[in-house]
């Protein structure tokens, strides 16, 4: 069985009379240790897919499995525990707690889970060993995103989910972040899912899932992904 599996997952948003089917029966699988690129245009439903995978949103129908557990059947508290133990998130806008230092932001995550990595080491790994006592406002965007990655990674999750991690960053910084994520996957064997609208990123992944209008348009395995330094867009 695959590490992650989506079976006929549908998601319908309802606001008043209007029903919007954001995800219309998605099926795909991911293997452990893969770097997965989910790509598609804006509004295609890729974030919805990610949210459902990350336990932040429930699917309307279908089944979602991670490492044998059926996430789609989890209740509220199980979902919280799932997010706490098994998933790490990296957002487009970093979402750091402004009142905590870099180190504290990482510790915020690491200290609530069972088997965390060392927070300071994680920051060193992302190249921020010198900025541990700084507040987020004192860091650049790229640095903040590194902190976010360190925070997600320090939890030692089963799955690292990244939603447009380079969206708010310049080209160089963005590449550095992609490199960091690729290294994390390669060096530590973590499963990483990156969502992007940028088709250029496809070359990075072991597996590329194209989503269009709420359906999976194409799943492609890439036996020889490109190094992050080398991709251009």
């Amino acid at each position: 069985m695959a590490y992650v599996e989506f079976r006929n997952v549908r998601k319908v948003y309802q606001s008043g009379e209007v029903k919007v089917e954001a995800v219309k029966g998605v099926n795909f699988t991911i293997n452990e240790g893969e770097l997965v690129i989910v790509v598609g245009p804006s509004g295609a439903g890729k974030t919805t897919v990610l949210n459902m995978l990350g336990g932040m949103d429930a699917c309307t129908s279908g089944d979602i499995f991670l490492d044998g557990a059926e996430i789609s059947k989890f209740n509220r508290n199980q979902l919280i525990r799932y997010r706490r133990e098994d998933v790490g998130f990296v957002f487009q806008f970093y979402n750091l707690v402004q009142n905590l230092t870099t180190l504290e932001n990482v510790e915020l995550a690491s200290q609530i889970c069972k088997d965390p990595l060392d927070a300071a080491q994680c920051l060193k790994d992302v190249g921020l060993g010198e900025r541990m006592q700084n507040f987020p406002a004192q860091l650049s965007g790229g640095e903040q995103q590194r902190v976010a990655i360190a925070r997600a990674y320090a939890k030692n999750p089963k799955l690292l989910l990244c939603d447009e991690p380079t969206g708010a960053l310049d080209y160089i910084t963005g590449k550095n972040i992609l490199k960091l994520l690729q290294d994390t996957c390669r060096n530590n064997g973590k499963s990483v899912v990156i969502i992007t609208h940028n088709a250029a990123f496809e070359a990075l992944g072991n597996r590329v899932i194209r989503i269009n209008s709420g359906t999976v348009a194409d799943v492609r395995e890439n036996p020889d992904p490109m190094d992050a330094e080398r991709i251009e867009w």
Partner: protein
Amino acid sequence: MKNKAFQKSSIRVVKSTMTRFVSIALISFLGAGVFAGLAATSPNMKQAGDQYYDEQNVMDVRMLSNYGFSNEDVDAIRSTEGVSGVMASNTVDATGTVGDKDYAFRINGLPKSNDPSDADYINQMKLTEGRWPENDNEAIIIRPSIGLKNITLGSSVSLNKESNKNFVDFLDRAEYTVVGIAESPYYLSFMQGSTTVGNGMIDYVLYVPQNNFIIDGYTDLYATITGAKASNTFENAYFAKTEATVKRLETLADQRKAYRYDEFQSDLSKAKTEYADAQKEADDKLADAQKQLDDGRDTLNSAKAEYEDGLAEYNTQKADAEKKLADARKKLDDAAAEIAAGEKELNTKKSDFSSAEAELKAARAKLDSGWSDYNSKSAELAKNKNELAEKKTALDHAQAQYDSLSQLGALKSARDAATPGSPQYAQLDAQYQDALKSAGLTEQQADAQIASMPAMKSELDNNWAEYNTAAAQISEGEKQLAAAKQELESGEKEYSAKSAELESARTELNKAESQLAAGKKSYQSGLTEYNSQKAEADSKLANAKTKLENAAAKIQNGEKELADKQKEYDDKKAEADTKLADAKQKIENAEKKLSDMGEPKWYVLDRNMNESFATYHDDTGRMHDLATVFPVIFFLVAALVCLTTMTRMVDEDRTLIGTFKALGYSNGKIAGRYLKYAASASLIGSIAGVCFGFWLIPTIIWNSYHIVFALPDMTPAFYWSIAFLSIFSTVFIICLSTGIAAKKSLVETPADLMRPKAPKSGKRVFLEYVKPVWSRLSFTKKVTVRNLGLNKKRLIMTLIGILGCTSLVLTAFGAKSAVGAILDKQFGSIFHYDASVGFDGEKPSSELVSRLSDTAYFGKSTEVLRKSAEASPRSNENDNYNVYVVSPQDAKNFTDYVTFADPKIKNEFNFQDDSVVITEKLAMNLKVGVGDTIMVKYLDESSRHAVTITGITTNYAFNYVYIGKDAYEKAFGALPEYNQFFAITAKGHTNDEIKTYLSSTSGIGAISFTDDLMGNIRTSIKSVDNIIWILIIAAGMLAFVVLYNLTNINIGERQRELATLKVLGFYDKETYSYIFRETVILSIIGCILGLFGGIFLYRAVVATVEPDMILLTRDLTWQGYLGAAILTMLFTWIVNQCMKPRIKNIDMLESLKSVD
């Protein structure tokens, strides 16, 4: 309508930010409501009071005079310009008993009319139960707000005539039955005024028919003033309106009192002349009567003398006759006695003679028998002599026989003693054989005879002895016989002598008998003669006596007549004397009154001098002051809440503002958007608050005043001026703070505004440098600490809000416990006596003293003076305070009954004979201290006395001036006139039992127990409870609004953070604490500050609301602090519970999507 889109956006923003809108509306509601409610209470109370006064036609002026008022006075007042109605009445105070309880009563005369439309029916009563009196012994009682205790319809009131020395001059009836219960606007307050009877405080007011008042004229006049009803009596306009008429009445009073004085003087001199005339007339009449009486007495006296003479003569005659008769009688009696004695002697002699005769005869017979006896004895003796001689012969023979036998025996024994066969034996045997032969006996015979020898011998001896005795008898008999013969011969001689004697006696006896018979005969004839003489004398005397008795009866009649006349005279004289004495007394009284009271005085008193009015007026003033203290807190908090809320709103709309600016909207237009938003919220809130406040707060306060004042229900009123002021100031404050918040953003350029505001950087706070503490904090705690340092405005708002809440609650609890402390401290640790027992007269009866020293009922007791008085500072005599003057007889032990303690340093001190100690509150009111002098005036006297204070003591209820004996004498010029006992009762008897035990004691006055006093106070302070609830509710709302707002802003501001935490897998509880910890910390800090702030607020409130006679302690209890802290934290908890769903419902996805 080119701004339609702009307006639409303005309206939509209200919908989308409902919680914000609501929190501004709510704080406006609270601020405006509390202000309007409290501000409206005072005018509302004034209005309701005035309405009641108008409806009941309450007097505008009360007039008193030390000389009373005559009907002319009443007419003069009635015709004064401006006076619309006049009612004259009488008032007297007395203690009385209902059932087993004593009360102090004020007795008023019932008005002539009870028709409400009659202008002269002033201070109209509202009959609530029963009916108006129809008979003179019926009465109406006024129900005070605290109720009538054991008095009901049909209760009989028995007034104590002794309790007021004027009572009998005023009223001729002391027993009344309550037939009606009424409310009177004149006696609103449960404190119905001071009095000089009982304990100094009037318990109940009675109205009795005017017929019962026997005093001439009236003691009280009540008048109403035309047009006065148009003004509210609690406003200055009323006094301005009545002033002119009051002045006119004062002028009239000056005229009338002079006239009245003259009238009194002339009346007095007239009365004196009349008295003198009457006295002269009476004297003349009496003199006539006296003369007649004297004449009658003379006549009687001469008749008496005549009678006396006649009586003397009669007595002499009677004595003579009686003497003669008595002599004769005596002689007769003597003779009779002699005869009787002669008879008796004769009889004796006769019996002597016959006994002698008999004796003689007996002696003859005795002699004859003696002789015959003698002869027979002599013959017997001769015979005995012969017998004896024969016996002697026989004896001699027997002796000889025995002697020969004894010889034979001796031989035989000699032979037998020798050895048989010896020669000696043979010899002896031969001798013996010889003797035998000579005796003619054989040896055997001899042996037998020898053997019978001892018997023989004894027989022989006996016979000999017998013989000797008989021989002696015979010789004796011979001797006797000879003596008897001699005696007989002398008896013969005597007999013949006596026989001769008897013969001569017989002759003598016969002679005496004949003599006696002659005596008897002459006595008989004497007696006959005496009897005839006596009968003659008796009839003569009886005649004389009858005559005398007739004369005596005549005298008696004369005497009786005279006595009657005398009595008649005496009666007349007594009557005349009484009349004259009465008249004289009256004149003297009048003179004394004139000299005592001096100049006649009229007092023209306006409503301010009515205790109920003054108390009520003061209370409305206090409410007014209270209305200025509290709203300040609410307005301050409202401003801060609005400032933070709007700042947040403006910050959120930063980009929007930039966009509008970029689109070319003016600053004013954009600011207007926020001003309108805030204004509409605060307008809605404050209008609702004003309406609610106008209704709720006056109603609650009014209801609590019902306990203290007997008032009708109040209708909440709407005051446009207060409503406007309250709404305007609320909206203004809200708009002002909105303007301040908006200004900061509006001055920035559109470009700056379009750029997202740099997120507020995390800042290191001081605590981080305290490593040991900091390193132990979790991240959420660190965030909390850093957040607290981040927004000072919000911090201050929250702190002030919580501080206000805690202070209000603390004030509420403080007020409650202070009021409770009055009871606990006053009656627990200051007053130790349980009862006061009044007595009539200058000294208590010994019965009372002995009952009070009965240890089964009383622990101890002491004699004191206690009287109602007024105290004023030396400088201003019009600044009066009601006090009790208490002067103990035994200063040294007085601290057993009342504890004296310095209010500042709390230590107790002793009471001395020269001490003058006043209570703390009085010292505060008079603004005096130790060493200062104050003036004291008894209510029933006019002179003021200066006393110098030597000490101030802690005291919570009522004002007292304690004066030692010596100090009293110095100040008042006389020793205190003790009028009651303070007593400490013994355990084991109820108050009723103690009262029953004392009630029959002679000279007993009113008995009152401190328990009853406690009950009164307890009732009156229940009113505080409602106010406490207002405070607690207001505090709760304040806390709610502030915390709700703070939490709301915090959640709004940190929505992203919260979403991030949720994404990171924080449980709900952890997420809540991320927000609530801040609230809780601020609540705790605010609460601690509030506990300090509350001390000041409490003191300010106490200083504002404290009545004159009550001292509320300035100290707060730990329970109060604890309660305030707990309640504050409870409010915090409730707010947190309310906010939980908001945090729970934060959508992770929405919050994470983008920056704005």
